[in-house]
Structures are given as structure tokens and as C-alpha cells.
């Protein structure tokens, strides 16, 4: 408890380029960039594979890779390959981490739509694309959002690694704190990351209320 008071009670921790607000902002920047890139790749891909039924192996490979690949190892690899100094070494591993949950859940969401519903949609005279966007996507939305949420939470938690390659973010408190044995910083940083993850969770819960039709939300 004392450590928390030391960390959050210290006025110096609240201002300047290494203060809490600045670090949170940096952290969110990496996370948001990685998350958005992943979403732009994985959502359309998941929709397409789920709709056409072609390329399902991509989903399987991605799901397995997610379990097998250590993010930190990937970070080191990318740094070795392209060096430090840009955000790329951080972004690449984060995107790789963020894609599978979105891809898998979007795919499963679309594929899991009741065959009769899909059939009725075609039977009414919807074209393939209309079936995808007017029927499959709205029905799959709860799962798509679940994938996005899992992904966002992982990214926010893992963006800590940016600090390993000299970039900012909340990881700095942890890395620097460990280096200088300032454990209040380590714990304060960890708590902030946990709070961010919680905020993401809350954000998605609200988003779910707004974008998912009550007709679909109730059924699941």
C-alpha cells in the first residue's frame, strides 16, 4: 500500500515527459496503432474467409501461432533485423499478437450464423455481399466485438515491451523501476496497466450496448 502512495502521491510523477499522463498517452498511442492495424487486417479477412469458406487454414495457422509465438522473442528478433530507433520493432510484434483473436472470432462469428438464416437471406434475393453485410455481420457482431476486446486487452497489457527497446509507455515505470530498485514505480506502473485494461473492457461493454442489435444480444 505504501508503495502505491509513494508512486501516486508523488507530485513529480504527475508532470513532465516521464510523468504518468505522458506515459499513459504514449502507451495508448502504441496500443491504439497496433490494435487498429490488426483490426483493419483481421476483421475483413475473418469476414471474407467466414463468408466464402475459403482460406480457413489461415485462421487455424494464426490461432496456433498466437499460442506458440513469444512476443518478447519476436520483439528481440525484429530489433535484430531492423534495429532500434523507430516504433516498428514494437508495432510488429504487437500487431502479430493482436491479429489472431480478432481473426478467429470474426471467422467463427460469421461461420456460426444459423444456416437457415443464411439460406433465408439468399432466398429473399439478397446478393452475396448483401448477405455478408446485412445479415451475417450484424449476427456475428457479438463475437467480432469479443475478438476485438480480447485483442485490445492483450495489446494494452503487452505494450509494456516498448520500454525494452528504449521507447516510452507505462513499461518505462516497470523497467526503470526494476533497474533502480524503485519498487513503488514498478508496482505503480503495473497498476496503471491493469487499470487501462479494465478501461478497455468497460469501453467494449458500452460499445456492445450501442452497436449490437438488441435482437442479437439477447439471443447469445
Amino acid at each position, binding site marked *: 500500500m505504501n508503495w502505491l502512495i509513494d508512486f501516486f502521491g508523488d507530485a513529480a510523477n504527475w508532470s513532465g515527459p516521464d510523468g504518468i499522463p505522458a506515459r499513459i498517452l504514449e502507451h495508448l498511442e502504441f496500443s491504439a496503432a497496433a490494435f487498429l492495424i490488426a483490426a483493419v487486417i483481421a476483421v475483413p479477412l475473418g469476414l471474407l474467409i467466414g463468408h466464402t469458406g475459403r482460406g480457413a487454414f489461415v485462421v487455424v495457422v494464426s490461432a496456433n501461432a498466437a499460442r506458440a509465438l513469444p512476443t518478447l522473442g519476436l520483439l528481440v528478433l525484429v530489433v535484430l533485423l531492423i534495429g532500434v530507433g523507430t516504433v516498428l520493432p514494437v508495432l510488429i510484434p504487437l500487431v502479430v499478437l493482436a491479429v489472431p483473436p480478432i481473426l478467429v472470432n470474426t471467422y467463427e462469428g460469421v461461420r456460426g450464423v*444459423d444456416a*437457415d*438464416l443464411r*439460406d*433465408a*437471406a*439468399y*432466398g*429473399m*434475393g*439478397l*446478393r452475396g455481399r*448483401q448477405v455478408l453485410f*446485412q*445479415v451475417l455481420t*450484424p*449476427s456475428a*457482431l457479438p463475437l467480432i466485438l469479443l475478438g476485438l476486446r480480447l485483442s485490445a486487452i492483450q495489446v494494452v497489457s503487452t505494450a509494456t515491451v516498448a520500454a525494452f527497446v528504449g521507447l516510452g509507455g507505462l513499461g518505462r515505470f516497470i523497467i526503470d523501476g526494476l533497474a533502480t530498485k524503485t519498487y513503488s514505480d514498478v508496482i505503480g506502473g503495473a497498476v496503471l496497466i491493469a487499470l487501462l485494461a479494465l478501461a478497455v473492457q468497460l469501453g467494449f461493454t458500452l460499445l456492445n450496448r450501442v452497436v449490437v*442489435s*438488441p*435482437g*442479437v444480444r*439477447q*439471443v447469445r
Partner: protein
Amino acid sequence: MITFEGVTKRYPDGTVAVDDLSLQAPTGAITVFVGPSGCGKTTSLRMINRMIDATSGRILLDDQDVRAIDPPTLRRGIGYVIQQAGLFPHRKIVDNVATVPYLLGWDKKKARARAMELLELVGLDSRLAGRYPFQLSGGQQQRVGVARALAADPPVLLMDEPFSAVDPIVRASLQEELLHLQSELHKTIVFVTHDIDEAIKLGDTVAVLRVGGHLAQMAGPATLLSEPADDFVREFLGKDRGIRRLSFVPAKGVRLGSTPADLVVDEDTRPLGWRSNGGLLPYGTFDPERDSLRAALDAALLSPNGTAIAVDGDGRVIGVATRDALDEVLAQHATGPDEQAREPDGEAPVTDPKRAES
């Protein structure tokens, strides 16, 4: 008119679901495809709106080969109702009904107004319009399915076991509703069912299919009951064909006698019961203008004295049909000798088929 010309469907795995099927579904009438499970009813139906394409042969809508029309365009002009309703779960009922009008580019206001009209037409409370499908009972969803199929006023309606998943009471009311709608709308309807009673109740024409996608017989329901083409059809029709046959004979021809003194009526001359030392005995009524001979016979069996009470549209007594009077009509409708000869079990239909068709 929908015409099948030598239509065959062979699935990629080699199953021949429909084999050289030729038949016509007349305009403005209900044609029922009936047969045991797996006999190719669904496949036949779905070849009409090209949810499935035939392997060979042609299907004509009026005079146009359906293969010449782009499937989504074709389907927007054909109402389609399936067993599980298949409503879009994320859309409100009103928007579900307006699906095809939206696809056809109607403006939203007009499409919704049309949808509200249809909800009323199929007997749904307008308050349901703002609900989602999961908030409706199975029977209500099925009505919405029918409303959705009718929304853009297509001349043709395809229905694949639309009432099979609801309980018998709801099913009966949905069937009545469909007949009522049809009496106003005169659509060309192809209706698929495995239930022969449903087929006989709804069909103007009934096509009995046997497994392998062969047409066993195609006839009006009365003819089907009195003249099944072969043992398969006879067996499929089930028991009591003779009695069921009477449903197609109007009760109009029954000779009515004057109201006997022991029939107690109220001040509006509606029947109350048969007088019997102090108490009232049960009775049965029929309306000669609307009911069938079967209903008249049923009414007679409900009265202890075997006399059926004839009533008008308002339920007022207009006379009675004694057992003798009913017997006279039954005799007129007894089966001819050639038909009896074909009955191995002596379960002969009661009616002259030629009369029944008129």
C-alpha cells in the same frame, strides 16, 4: 403458371433427388408437393427460385425459363417461406417484413407502411412491429415469415413445410389463415409438406411424390382420395379415405325437414338441446350453405337421436336433417362399381368422383 419439363436433379454425390419431373402448377392456385421425407420435395421447390439449379430439364415461370433470370432478381419476385421462418434476428419485425421492398429500393417510409399493412393482413397485432424475432412465439414468427414473403406482392409464393414446426392448434389456425389470404390474393402457390392431411386441406392440386423424386400422382384432393393411382398413394393417403372424401361434398343437397317439437331453442331460435324428461341432451349443427356432408354427418353423430340440426350463418335453426335424409345423399355419393373393384380391403370411398370435382 409454373411448368416443370423433364426436370432432374442429381447432387454431386450422385443422389438423384428429382427424376424427370414434369408437371404444371396453375396460376392463382395452391399446388401441394407431398410425399415421405427425402422424396425430393424441397429440391423440387428450390429449383423454382434457383436456390438449387436443375441438372437437366427446364422450369418455366409463365413462359420464361428461370435459368435465364439472374437468381437474386428472380428471387425478389418470388415469395419464399421456410419452416424455421429464418427471420433476421437483428432486425425489428417491421423491417424483417420490409426486407424485399428495401432490396427493391422502395423508400423506407413506403416500405414500412407496406409492412404494417401486411402484419395486419396475416393477423398480427401492430404492436409486434417494433419487437425483435426472439420476442415472438413460433406461430407468430411463421406469420411474419408469410408477411415477409408477400411484402413486395410477388405473384408466386413458395412455401417449404412452413407450418411443420408449430403445435397442431397453431398449425390449424395458420392453415385457415393461408386459405383465407389466398381467397383474397389468388397467388400461384407451391406448398411443400410431408403431411397428407395438410396437403388435402390446402391443395387445389396435390402432387404426390415418391422417394427418388418420381411423381406418383397429381390430382385434386377429392380425386386423390377416391381414385388413388397405386398402392403407394393409397397407403400414403392413410385410413378413412371414404369419410375424408365427404369433406369435399357440399351439404347443400341434404333434404331438410321441419324442426321437431322436442328441439328446444332460445328466443332467437338458436338450438339449446333435445328435450328429454326434464333435462337437455347434446346436439350437433351444420350450416348447409357452408359446410360439407362430412360436417353434417358429424352433427348427426353428435345428437343422441341421430338428427343433425341445420343452422344459418347466425346459428339460427332452419330445419333438421334426419338419418334418412343423410342416407339419401350418401347413397348418391357412393362409389361406383369399378372403383370398388380396386379396393382390396373393402374400404370404399363413399362418393362419385365426377360429382365431387364440380
